[in-house]
């Protein structure tokens, strides 16, 4: 019964969007879109509400039973209530500078600062990951390192300076030497080879997405949404 219900709702939803895409605008399916979108938003809002309730139940249980890491749960609930109170105070007393400053302190000086700190870690991780991948351990790694070096040199003013004087008085040879400049090699690698590979991946992904969507629409996808047949 449950499986049948999910299959029916899935198929009906898929059919609606398929027809909306395929049929002419004059047929009126476009006009029903706000209603359908409203239903989806309402379901999502219910899920958020249930999520907040579950969050409170779970973390209160952890605190009351003094389970491992209970202080993290307490910190979470305190932070949640503080942020909620600051937003409500700012909303109901828009003229109060104190409440506005309190909210801005929490959001800009605490939350955003932590967010940016985390983001800055990415630079460190990129360097460590790049170091690992550039180590010459195989033919593929060597090719990758050489190509990466060319791209980096082409990107940097210092690298561009290295090949600045490549030129010839003979026009044909001049074109050849110009093409060997790091900035031109970088552009060739990035705009031809790299874009070609990316478009290849995008085309194949599109085909995969169409096939996957159809499997979902017809409820053929196993092992994830319904009982595993295998």
């Amino acid at each position, binding site marked *: 019964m449950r499986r049948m219900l999910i299959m029916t709702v899935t198929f009906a939803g898929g059919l609606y969007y398929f027809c909306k*895409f*395929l049929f*002419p*605008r004059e047929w009126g399916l476009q006009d029903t879109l706000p209603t359908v979108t409203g239903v989806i938003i309402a379901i*999502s809002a219910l*899920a*958020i509400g249930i*999520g907040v309730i579950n*969050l409170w139940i*779970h973390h209160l*249980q*952890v605190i009351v039973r003094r389970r491992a890491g209970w202080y993290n749960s307490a910190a979470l609930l305190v932070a949640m209530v503080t942020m909620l109170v600051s937003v409500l105070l700012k909303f109901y007393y828009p003229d109060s500078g104190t409440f506005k400053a309190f909210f801005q302190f929490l959001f800009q000086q605490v939350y955003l600062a*932590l*967010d940016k700190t*985390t*983001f800055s*870690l*990415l630079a460190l*991780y*990129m360097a*460590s*990951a*790049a170091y*690992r*991948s550039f180590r010459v351990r195989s033919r593929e790694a060597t090719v990758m390192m050489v190509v990466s070096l060319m791209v980096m040199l082409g990107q940097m003013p210092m690298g561009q300076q290295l090949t600045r004087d490549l030129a010839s008085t003979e026009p044909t040879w001049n074109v050849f030497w110009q093409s060997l400049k790091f900035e031109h090699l970088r552009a060739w690698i990035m705009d031809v080879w790299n874009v070609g590979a*990316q478009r290849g*991946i*995008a*085309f*194949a*992904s599109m*085909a*995969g*997405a*169409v*096939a*996957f*969507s*159809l*499997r*979902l629409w*017809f409820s*053929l*996808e*196993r*092992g*994830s*949404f319904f*009982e*595993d*047949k*295998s």
Partner: protein
Amino acid sequence: MNYLYVACMAVWSGVIVWRIVFAGDRELHIRKIAGLESIDEAVGRATEMGRPILFASPSGGMDLPGLSSLAVLSRVARMAARYGTRLIVTAMDYLMYTMAEEICKEAYIAEGKGDLFDPPRDLHFINAQFPYAIGTAGIIHREQVAATFMFGYFNAESLLISEAGNQVGAIQVAGTDAIMQVPFFVVSCDYTLIGEELYAAGAYLSQEKTMMGSLAGQDIVKASVIALLIVGVVVTTWCGVFGYERNPFVEWLVNR
């Protein structure tokens, strides 16, 4: 509406449906995908080491890559339940969290070990990008996970999570169709599924004939796209050499 575009989509969809419906009993060969083959190896290694497995849900939420990642989660959860290995799941999208909980419950019950699964302990929900990344990285370090799985559409958090896994020496399997994140996964993970391989995961893992039929249909679609590309190259070259006005095919195409 561009009728040519709609016609292409209709024909491609029709081809895939045709291959699904007439999948028949014929055995279809699918090339080995190392990333999916390694799931058993990763879970086995975690079991031997007595350390948990982590499945990081994608930040893209319940989009197509996110939905396809659930097929892998189902497999990982089944394997973890079978061997009694702890599975930790982190989610950034509330719908993904609910789906992940449901899938894990079903998988553990299917293996007759429903009591082993403890959502408050093993399921984590963090609804913002960098808190999600750093929270997941924290779990990886604290729990010293032995294997991590990252499937679906990721953004900048991909490297933050996968590098954390790399630091604790976890065996890492990732799959994404986010082109910008593929290089990050390639350098920090042991196995990476790229683009369409992610969408093929469900079919590959189940080996069911109808699903394999959809992959065969997908191959026909790809062949037709390649053919269209060749036609495009020939037409563009023709226009470059003889001029646009002398090409009746291009004229017909543009006028449609």
